[in-house]
């Protein structure tokens, strides 16, 4: 009988297609995975399935008229893109924003940060396999949708900020409603911790998976909670001190490697949970401090015709990290070039470098922990 010799050249690698249609909530992303059974050798991301050419449309719309398109750059946290575009245009045209408008911007943005993190946390738990936290977080997000509907009329794509301020003031009694909801929200976050964050199985799935050090994170351009989870305390709200954030007190949660190594997937999850709690603190302070400023003073002095010349770069701390907008004007009513720099774009690029050696299920956890949304990548 002849012997069967198994050699290493008997390639048992298979090429899988984690196709653009998949039951995950991060949008249309595609991975071409070369794997040896469960262990991945190489995972190449393929993006562009949601490329809506928003940057080209900026070249034919006026500056204020472009605001609804900025909602769609990141629809889960649309207030931040609105703020980014208005800050870039205000820097370009030299417009000052009144204090009450800044407070309204902070309030709407922090509400949106909580809403965005709710989807991120729920989706991450669902990708791991725990289906229950997702409706829990969706329930909280429904309340926030109700608040923003009262404030500006829309549940998802707000178009609330304007160049020079915001569009509408708070309705009467809105601040009390939000404070009552916050009283309800903080115990729910504690319950959420007990349910999933400190759950044994969840921790075992996520701890020590895809560790990213601070040096790697800076080199690959990771921003936001992903960078903070690697142990580097960097938050544009404290560093740049834009808007009225210097007047508010809050902490920056940083990954400490409590359940594994610093910079693993569990740290990225936990940083977002802590950020929700910090946002609740900021909201309480802002809702109190806004009463010091006169009502209805919500838009600054605007030039008669918005035809600026020059270029400007502005950035905000969005729910997904540092979102920057680079706008060039050439004396016309439309922008000459508008470019959005988003956190998810660079987060996708690191996956190819980090995936060899992971299990297939860990790849799903890694993508979920970066909190990527497809429109930020493709714009």
């Amino acid at each position: 009988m002849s012997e069967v010799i198994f050699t290493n050249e008997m390639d048992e690698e298979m090429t899988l297609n984690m196709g653009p249609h998949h039951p995950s909530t991060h949008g249309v992303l595609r991975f071409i995975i070369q794997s040896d059974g469960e262990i991945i050798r190489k995972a190449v991301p393929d993006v562009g399935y949601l490329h809506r050419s928003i940057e080209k449309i900026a070249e034919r719309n006026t500056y204020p008229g472009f605001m609804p398109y900025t909602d769609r750059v990141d629809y889960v946290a649309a207030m931040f893109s609105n703020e980014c575009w208005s800050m870039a245009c205000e820097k370009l045209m030299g417009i000052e924003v009144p204090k009450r408008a800044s407070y309204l911007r902070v309030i709407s943005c922090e509400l949106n940060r909580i809403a965005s993190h709710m989807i991120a946390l729920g989706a991450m738990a669902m990708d791991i396999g725990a289906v229950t936290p997702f409706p829990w977080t969706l329930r909280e997000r429904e309340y926030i949708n109700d608040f923003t509907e009262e404030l500006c009329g829309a549940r998802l794509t707000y178009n609330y900020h304007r160049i020079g301020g915001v569009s509408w003031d708070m309705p009467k009694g809105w601040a009390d409603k939000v404070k009552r909801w916050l009283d309800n929200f903080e115990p729910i976050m504690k319950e959420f911790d007990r349910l999933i964050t400190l759950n044994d199985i969840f921790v075992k799935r996520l701890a020590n998976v895809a560790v990213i050090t601070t040096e790697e994170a800076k080199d690959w351009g990771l921003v936001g909670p992903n960078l903070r989870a690697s142990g580097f305390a960097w938050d544009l709200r404290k560093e740049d001190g834009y808007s009225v954030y210097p007047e508010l007190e809050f902490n920056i949660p940083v990954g400490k490697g409590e359940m594994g190594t610093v910079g693993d997937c569990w740290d990225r999850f936990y940083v977002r949970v802590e950020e929700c709690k910090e946002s609740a603190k900021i909201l309480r302070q802002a809702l109190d401090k806004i009463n010091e400023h006169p009502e209805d003073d919500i838009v600054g002095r605007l030039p008669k015709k918005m035809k600026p010349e020059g270029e400007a770069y502005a950035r905000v701390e969005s729910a997904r990290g540092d979102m920057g907008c680079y706008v060039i004007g050439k004396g016309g009513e439309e922008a000459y070039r508008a470019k959005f720099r988003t956190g998810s774009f660079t987060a996708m690029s690191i996956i190819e470098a980090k995936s060899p050696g992971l299990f297939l299920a860990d790849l799903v956890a890694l993508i979920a922990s970066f909190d990527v949304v497809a429109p930020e990548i493709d714009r």
Partner: protein
Amino acid sequence: MTPEAIFKRLQEKFGEETVFDFHEVSDKNRDAWFQVAPFEIEPVCEYLKTEPDLAFDYLESMTGVDYPDDKKIVVVDHIYSYGHKHRVILKAFLDREDPAMPTLVNVWSTANWHERECFDLLGVLFEGHPDLRRILLPDDWEGHPLRKDYEEKEEYHGIPTQRPNPIELYKIGVPGKDKKAS
């Protein structure tokens, strides 16, 4: 360090041929920027990253802008330093007919995807890039859309690219333009 000081430092090290044309903060330019000769950009960026005083470790964004009137395509790099909290903006002016420049992948790994995007939308070739192919558009797309003279094709794989305007198609009266409409 102020942008002016950084510019002077670079000019001392690399000479006036490589680093030139400083624009300071003014009404038109809200951030200071200067030009870099395209084919010398890699040593300049390497110096920016490794020198301890400068320590630029974060490539924020790489944008491509098309200027058909000047017959140039400009690649703008916004680079930031976490340690010293200063920013520098480099611009490389490339020839519009044949835009090419060396890659920055060896300096900052994040430049990989930024350069692919520039190539996809504007057609700039980055020499030395490990994997330069289209990223946002389908692989068989023709043309570079963000150029100012880009024309949309009639159809893509049999799918028509325009949809007839229903107002013209069904002759719907628009209030304000049509006197009969309410």
